């Protein structure tokens, strides 16, 4: 129950997590990387290195350690392996190794975590090497059989050719022999200019079952003798379960057991989930809500607002010159305060996990963004050692960061432990999912910009006040108390670097951590930092009497990649030409997750309150693009997610609880509200950036800046529904 913001509790979870994935718990089945002892897949086909299995019929099974959750990484990662493997793409299939298998093999598949837009960018190197290693071994096996040097053989489309004699064979035919070879110590990867499959918008590998109802999500898992559980956790974070009156639901249809889950939750186990949920709704529960029940959105906002005061302590994340002095003596200054609320991930599939526990074994089936973290949670909750546990990943109905957490996995095991031998499927109701989120952190930001007499921006002070995700979830990653991730998009350097040069700059964070548990929500801190910075850039441009694009360009001379994507959207949307009658434009740029992105929107506004989004243009430079069709979908999806949060989102707190309960109070964009996103891809090569998240940063500011252009009014707070602004 990783519930509280208490660092102690979370640190413990981390230590266990580290042990599980480190050498300490590896059980030492000493199987070297594709070594002389042949390692076989479940169907008996040989592994050619850990990443590739080749079946006799030439089917190539590519192992995927990261999680597919809709973002397309499964297909992209397979493309990376297949590119180097030189196999027939039409015969490629994929499978997930389990975290238990990975631990048993000394983490041969590396990191399983799928967040921070890292699925491809953090594993591209070793998965391509996995493909190349298998190719070298397969070619060697053919050369050995022909008694010719391997250097005289080539491979393409799963066919190996001895170039001098013209003899050919296939991967399937030499796989057994290849599996017995010692893998090469090092392999050379292709020059990007020689890529054939990387860069192609090939179809996803997981589509068909998603159109027929056959795809198994966590919620669909069925095991023999399985029972279903519904759960309620204390709605006030940090509170506890005091009591429940089981007698009141005795005899309700299908109910098998009512169980306490940790100190904070109660679950009803029944034959069907509908029976479990119906009984849980009828169960009288008393909570010990504690002091957090006094917290409200108003009290949080007041506390955060106090953090905007310079007299309060703050961590400095980015600094240049002396911003405070420059502002004090400036010819002109501009100041504004913005805010961004809590947001729920609201994945379409609520959290769930299926667990079976016996004294010798604990297995879990679930959608997760981090198989290894889920595995660590199973170890902790079951009390069993690694060799007696495993996690079977199934398709998650969305992740967006929520399924990187393991609270729901832990709960399922804690329930199953109370009914040994019976598989338990725990499913949260949508209401539970809304109440027990790991919310996008809440922040406010005061920005002050100062100009010299010639309207040059000479100073910028960006003072963020609010919640740190790392403080709650990864306190060991804080740097002398500072959360470096809080500066995503406005950082001095790195994969989310600020894109403007300002001679006197001060970017700081007054950390204030309310009791509502924060989480990594698609785009994470780029969301609010990009809104604050890019909307304020527009305010500065206006104060300087300059065009928002021109104003930015002047500050971006030292940031050519940031500038290139900004220019690309400006050109595509036709910034230099007038917009259609009644239509207004806004523009924004940011860097996040190693990629440079920009967005522009064309909107019209009726009565100051009804927004119609006519066009969205988005540009991205992720260095290399593996699958442009999927990148395009991630860009468009980022706009849907970001604009849903802008228009309809926002979770508020009353009596210590989240007030929103379902999609009626936490709505999401529909097809009628969303124009097609025109994406412009400008991969400049030489680096690997992520694509699942960065674009969300520019979605809201592009629209908000267009709203100002249309109405002359600044919107500095999210969501718009609180300000009676809706889609037309």
């Amino acid at each position: 129950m990783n519930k509280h913001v208490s660092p102690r509790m979370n640190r413990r979870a981390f230590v266990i997590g580290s042990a599980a994935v480190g050498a300490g718990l590896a059980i030492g089945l000493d199987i070297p990387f594709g070594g002389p002892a042949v390692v076989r897949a479940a169907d008996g086909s040989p592994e050619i290195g850990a990443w590739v299995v080749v079946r006799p019929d030439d089917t190539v099974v590519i192992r995927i350690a990261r999680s597919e959750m809709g973002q397309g990484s499964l297909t992209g990662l397979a493309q990376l392996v297949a590119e180097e493997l030189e196999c027939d793409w039409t015969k490629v299939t994929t499978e997930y190794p389990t975290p238990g298998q990975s631990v048993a093999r000394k983490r041969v598949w590396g990191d399983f975590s799928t967040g921070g837009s890292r699925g491809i960018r953090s594993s591209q190197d070793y998965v391509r090497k996995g493909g190349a290693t298998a190719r070298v071994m397969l070619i060697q096996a053919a050369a050995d059989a022909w008694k010719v040097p391997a250097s005289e053989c080539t491979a393409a489309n799963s066919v190996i050719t001895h170039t001098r004699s013209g003899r050919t064979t296939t991967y399937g035919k030499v796989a057994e022999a290849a599996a017995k070879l010692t893998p090469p110590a090092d392999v050379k990867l292709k020059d990007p200019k020689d890529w054939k499959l990387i860069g192609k918008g090939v179809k996803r590998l997981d589509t068909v079952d998603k159109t027929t109802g056959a795809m198994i999500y966590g919620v669909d898992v069925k095991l023999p003798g399985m029972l279903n559980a519904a759960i309620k956790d204390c709605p006030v974070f940090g509170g506890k379960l005091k009591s429940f009156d089981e007698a009141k639901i005795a005899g309700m249809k299908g109910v098998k057991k009512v169980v306490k889950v940790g100190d904070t939750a109660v679950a009803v186990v029944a034959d069907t989930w509908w029976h479990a949920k119906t009984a849980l709704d009828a169960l009288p529960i008393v909570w010990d809500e504690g002091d957090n029940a006094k917290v409200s959105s108003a009290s949080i906002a007041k506390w955060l607002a106090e953090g905007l005061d310079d007299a309060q302590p703050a961590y400095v994340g980015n600094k240049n010159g002396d911003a405070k002095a420059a502002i004090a003596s400036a010819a002109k200054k501009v100041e504004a305060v913005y805010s961004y609320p809590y947001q729920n991930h609201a994945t379409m599939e609520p959290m769930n996990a299926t667990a079976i526990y016996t004294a010798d074994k604990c297995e879990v089936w679930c959608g997760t963004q981090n198989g290894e973290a889920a595995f660590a949670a199973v170890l902790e909750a079951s009390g069993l050692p690694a060799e007696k546990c495993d996690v079977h990943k199934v398709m998650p109905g969305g992740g967006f960061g929520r399924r990187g957490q393991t609270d729901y996995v832990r709960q399922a095991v804690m329930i199953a432990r109370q009914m040994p031998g019976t598989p338990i499927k725990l499913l949260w109701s949508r209401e539970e999912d809304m109440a027990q989120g790991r919310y996008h952190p809440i922040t406010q930001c005061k920005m002050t910009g100062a100009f010299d007499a010639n309207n040059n921006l000479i100073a910028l002070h960006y003072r963020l006040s609010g919640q740190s995700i790392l403080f709650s979830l990864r306190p060991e990653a804080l740097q002398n108390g500072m959360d470096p991730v809080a500066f995503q998009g406005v950082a001095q350097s790195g994969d989310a670097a600020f894109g403007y040069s300002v001679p006197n700059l001060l970017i700081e964070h007054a950390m204030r951590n309310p009791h509502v548990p924060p989480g990594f929500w698609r785009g994470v801190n780029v969301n609010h930092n990009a809104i604050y910075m890019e909307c304020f850039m527009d305010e500065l441009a206006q104060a300087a009497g300059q065009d928002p694009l021109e104003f930015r360009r002047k500050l971006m001379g030292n940031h050519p990649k940031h500038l290139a994507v900004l220019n690309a959207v400006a050109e595509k949307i036709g910034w230099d030409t007038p917009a259609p009658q009644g239509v207004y434009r806004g523009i924004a740029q940011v860097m996040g997750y190693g990629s440079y992105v920009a967005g522009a929107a064309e909107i019209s506004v009726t009565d100051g309150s009804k927004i119609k989004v006519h066009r969205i243009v988005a540009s991205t430079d992720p260095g290399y693009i593996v699958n442009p069709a999927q990148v395009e979908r991630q860009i468009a999806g980022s706009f849907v997610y970001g604009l849903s949060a802008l228009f309809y989102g926002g979770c508020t707190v009353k009596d210590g609880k989240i007030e929103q309960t379902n999609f009626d109070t936490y709505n999401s964009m529909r097809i009628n509200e969303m124009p097609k996103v025109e994406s412009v891809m400008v991969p400049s090569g030489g680096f690997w950036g992520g694509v699942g998240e960065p674009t969300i940063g520019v979605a809201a500011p592009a629209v908000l800046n267009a709203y100002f252009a249309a109405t002359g009014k600044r919107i500095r707070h999210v969501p718009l529904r609180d300000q009676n602004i809706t889609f037309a």
Partner: protein
Amino acid sequence: MANLTINGKTFTLDVEPDTPLLWAIRENAGLTGTKYGCGIAQCGACTVHMDGVAMRSCGVTVSEAEGKKITTIEGLASGDSLHKVQEAWIAQDVPQCGYCQSGMIMAVAALLNEKPKPTDADIDEAITNICRCGTFAQVREAIHTIASA
């Protein structure tokens, strides 16, 4: 007990009459292609056809569904040949996580039954399903592809 006709087959299910059709389909008939998203008829993930009309099955009780012809995503194909909406979905690579797509496909199939060549405005009015991944552009494109075939 309730008798339901799902995908042309009669199911005699041990359920209370006020059980939402969604849960009878998923848990009692064992057809899990129809998804739970909200339980309050907002998101559309549980959309099925009842006598050819798209309905959010979480908001229909078993007693209301008795005697009606219910079609779920599993019953949309005819034998081995997929429904044209499913084929278009595959051709356009529509799904991302895919969780909402059973409902989305059922809603689109019902729309096309009624209006074989829907305009953008028709689509906007009829397709109100939530997709958190944001597949709307591909959904619209796939519908137009079917309509122009």
